């Protein structure tokens, strides 16, 4: 990875708007501006159409011979399947309200990163083939036909959108660029174009049950290690049930949380919480992925990967499913899962009910899937947890709303309720950058890959900027989030835009504050760093 420019250089280097009409500007594939292509073998394994070797930097992308017909047909098929697509192609008035809502646009000043223009890339093709005026008047009314540069352009900008839906919040007609980006990605997959960082996890998930390709025995091994670490910290080794039948709850969380720092601490948080509650639950190595990179590929792939959840709940006889902290996972679960693979297996509970408080989660009565912060917020409200928030007193924490739970679900106050109960110092970032207005980490929807690090720092600028604001104003030194991708992408982002701010999941802080029955005196947090606020600590 090339060294990054300084934030000042990064912003100063944003080019002015070009003079030429956007249709006359060809996409440019410099190293660092694109994600690596998916491997042919990966695409073959997944039975994706037209797998082939190609590279974005090459002039020739080796598209299949009849690529144009494939794309025209695929587009028409999508129009027949999605009313949203027809509508969003027809009704945009180009009022421009969305323009500066996009973090990619703010970070790059590339006009084609304005959501309206991102959609216009596809809309221009729609006009040519599907509207009368476009057929007759062509370029005059913003219509154009397919050519190979158009395909390249679509690829470039479909992978400069994190499907965060911030633009859709401000659009007077609710035009959702995530929907358009998702469909453009589908079209590109029809001619064998995908990116490695998405397709490789998809392949892994299909075989091993999780994106990271962790095989069952390794999965167990890692979780056992994490349980050991928990014991190190609190003197209690939480139980780690795997693939066990007959438990009330199946717990599913993104595999990123068993793999990488700082996600692992969130996972340890779950283990400790469940142990303390004596929760009747099991993990699964088969359904060992909460996230769904299929949702960044095609709707059908998302469905396919998601299907394991109900299948496993059925096999294990679980009454309901508890889901861990993850962003796009919850977009899929909240808005797609029941439609994809529902109704839930018949043996499951009518309404998922907390075994500890008896609270019925009526908002999840069809999917039977409850978000962990809903679950924990309810526990805290009913005083079922003994908490010592002073253990987190060395942190002044803020909360990053992940795009998907914010704008595809509305999970806003549950994590805040939990955070405020386990941390004494909680500060919000500026109003226009949180809750439903939240900015993406800059690398969602499968763009959390190293080769586009500079682009990620650009697109993450609004989030980084808001974080630095509270860092300077209130001394914030920690940012909590409820998303596994965030836990991977925010540390480098914070390091770049607001150095000195650490990142964690909410449940890492919960477990830090959780007073467990029979625990030893805590002198370390879950990261095994000294707790400065505990008597008898080092200070």
């Amino acid at each position: 990875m090339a060294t990054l420019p300084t934030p000042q250089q990064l912003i100063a280097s944003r080019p002015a708007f070009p003079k030429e009409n956007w249709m006359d500007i060809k996409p440019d594939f410099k190293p660092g501006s694109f994600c690596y292509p998916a491997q042919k073998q990966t695409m073959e394994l997944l039975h994706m159409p037209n797998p082939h070797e190609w590279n974005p930097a090459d002039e020739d992308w080796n598209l299949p011979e009849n690529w144009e017909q494939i794309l025209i047909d695929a587009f028409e098929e999508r129009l027949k399947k999605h009313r949203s697509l027809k509508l969003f192609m027809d009704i945009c008035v180009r009022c421009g309200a969305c323009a500066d809502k996009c973090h990619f646009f703010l970070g790059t000043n590339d006009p084609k990163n304005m959501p309206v223009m991102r959609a216009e890339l596809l809309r221009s093709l729609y006009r040519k083939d599907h509207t009368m005026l476009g057929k007759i008047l062509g370029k005059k009314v913003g219509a154009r036909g397919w050519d190979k540069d158009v395909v390249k352009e679509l690829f470039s900008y479909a992978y400069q959108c994190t499907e965060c839906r911030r633009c859709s919040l401000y659009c007077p007609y609710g035009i959702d660029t995530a929907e358009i980006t998702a469909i453009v990605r589908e079209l590109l997959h029809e001619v064998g174009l995908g990116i490695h960082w998405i397709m490789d996890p998809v392949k892994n998930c299909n075989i091993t049950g999780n994106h990271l390709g962790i095989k069952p025995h390794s999965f167990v091994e890692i979780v056992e290690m994490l349980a050991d670490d928990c014991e190190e910290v609190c003197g209690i080794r939480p139980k780690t049930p795997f693939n066990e039948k007959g438990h009330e709850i199946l717990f599913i969380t993104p595999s990123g949380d068993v793999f990488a720092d700082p996600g692992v601490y969130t996972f340890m948080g779950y283990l400790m919480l469940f142990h303390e509650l004596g929760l009747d639950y099991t993990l699964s190595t088969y359904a060992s992925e909460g996230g769904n990179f299929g949702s960044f590929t095609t709707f059908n792939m998302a469905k396919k990967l998601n299907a394991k959840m109900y299948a496993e709940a059925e096999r294990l006889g679980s009454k309901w499913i508890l889901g861990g902290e993850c962003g796009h996972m919850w977009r899929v679960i909240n808005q797609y899962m029941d439609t994809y693979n529902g109704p839930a297996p018949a043996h499951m509970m009518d309404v998922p009910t907390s075994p500890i408080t008896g609270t019925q989660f009526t908002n999840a009565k069809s999917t039977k899937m409850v978000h962990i912060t809903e679950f924990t917020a309810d526990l805290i409200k009913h005083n079922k947890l003994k908490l010592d928030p002073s253990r987190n007193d060395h942190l002044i924490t803020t909360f990053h709303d992940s795009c998907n739970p914010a704008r595809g679900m509305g999970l806003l106050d549950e994590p805040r309720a939990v955070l405020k109960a386990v941390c004494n110092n909680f500060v919000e970032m500026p109003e226009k950058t949180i809750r439903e207005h939240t900015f993406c980490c800059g690398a969602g929807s499968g763009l959390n890959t190293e080769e586009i690090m500079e682009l990620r720092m650009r697109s993450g600028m609004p989030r980084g900027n808001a974080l630095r604001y509270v860092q300077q104003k209130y001394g914030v030194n920690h940012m909590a989030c409820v998303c596994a991708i965030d836990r991977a992408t925010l540390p480098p982002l914070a390091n770049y835009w607001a150095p000195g701010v650490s990142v964690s999941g909410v449940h890492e802080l919960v477990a830090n504050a959780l007073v467990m029955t029979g625990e030893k005196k805590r002198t370390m947090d879950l990261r095994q760093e000294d707790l400065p606020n505990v008597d008898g600590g080092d200070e």
Partner: protein
Amino acid sequence: MSTSLLVVLLIGVVAWLGASLGLASLFGVFLPYVAVIIFIAGVVWRMVYWSKSPVPFAIPTTGGQQASLEWIKQASLDNPSTKWGVVKRMFLEVFFFRSLFRNTYAEVREDGPRIVYFSSKWLWCFALLFHYCFLLVFIRHFRFFIDPVPACITFIEAVDGVLQIGAPRLYLTGVLLLTALLFLLGRRLFNERLRYLSLMNDYFPLLLIIALVLSGMSLRYFIKTDIASVKAFTMGLVTFQPVGAEVTKNIGSLFFVHLTYLSVLLMYFPFSKLMHAPGVFFSPTRNLPNNTRAVHHENPWNDRNAPFTTYAEYEDTFRDVMVEAGLPVEKQPDAGDKE
């Protein structure tokens, strides 16, 4: 912009010449009837076209707190979970442009560098002004379509002309409508982002409506015509008994220019972005409740039997290592099979 302006001017000139050369019935009778038929049929055709595609997924954009635990207050207007909630959300969207009201202006500054967010309600304000004034102007025109004129229309006119400026009295809606239109045009011309993304599809309807409004205002304030004849003419149109030259000869050509602009607008409507008006009602990010975890949403093209990696296949792949790791398995490895 220049092409659109040219086209709009050309339409006006053609209509003017046509009416002056005695083709009043072509521009005043034939064209309006055709336009109304195209407008109504075209809009219905587009609505049917949209509705032929299903809404496979319920994808509301949630603009606030979801309905979850009892003690957490739901943002029921921006994140409704019931049909009634959606009705309220749509009402605010359609009548008050609620989403646009959220608008902000973000400015990236190189000092810092930092981003500053400003509240930016201008677009909302002028868009709302434009739409409501247009509606009121449309309603006011019913004095030409109904006889006797109902009191409610007279009342709207009285309120609209309440300042009693000049004779005939100046209507506020007309002035505000023109102001709003000029604002909407101005931002396309002077805002760099807007200028870059605007197409003929944006300038043409704006200029067309400006021309429609200007010709209408001229007819009222500057180049007047005999409105008693105009009413006789329009009543003829709406009662399907069009009047002939004995009436049209008393009506100035500008009236036919005005009517032609309206006809062109009606004919252009179904094939253009102006379809956002019926379209907003169809928008799946606004018109669906966020209750998809509680209520099943059916996708008509969902393949119930789509293959996925089943547990059995998974266990077949990993049985040995699973057993080794002490994981329970459905089928014990057959010792004989090994090696």
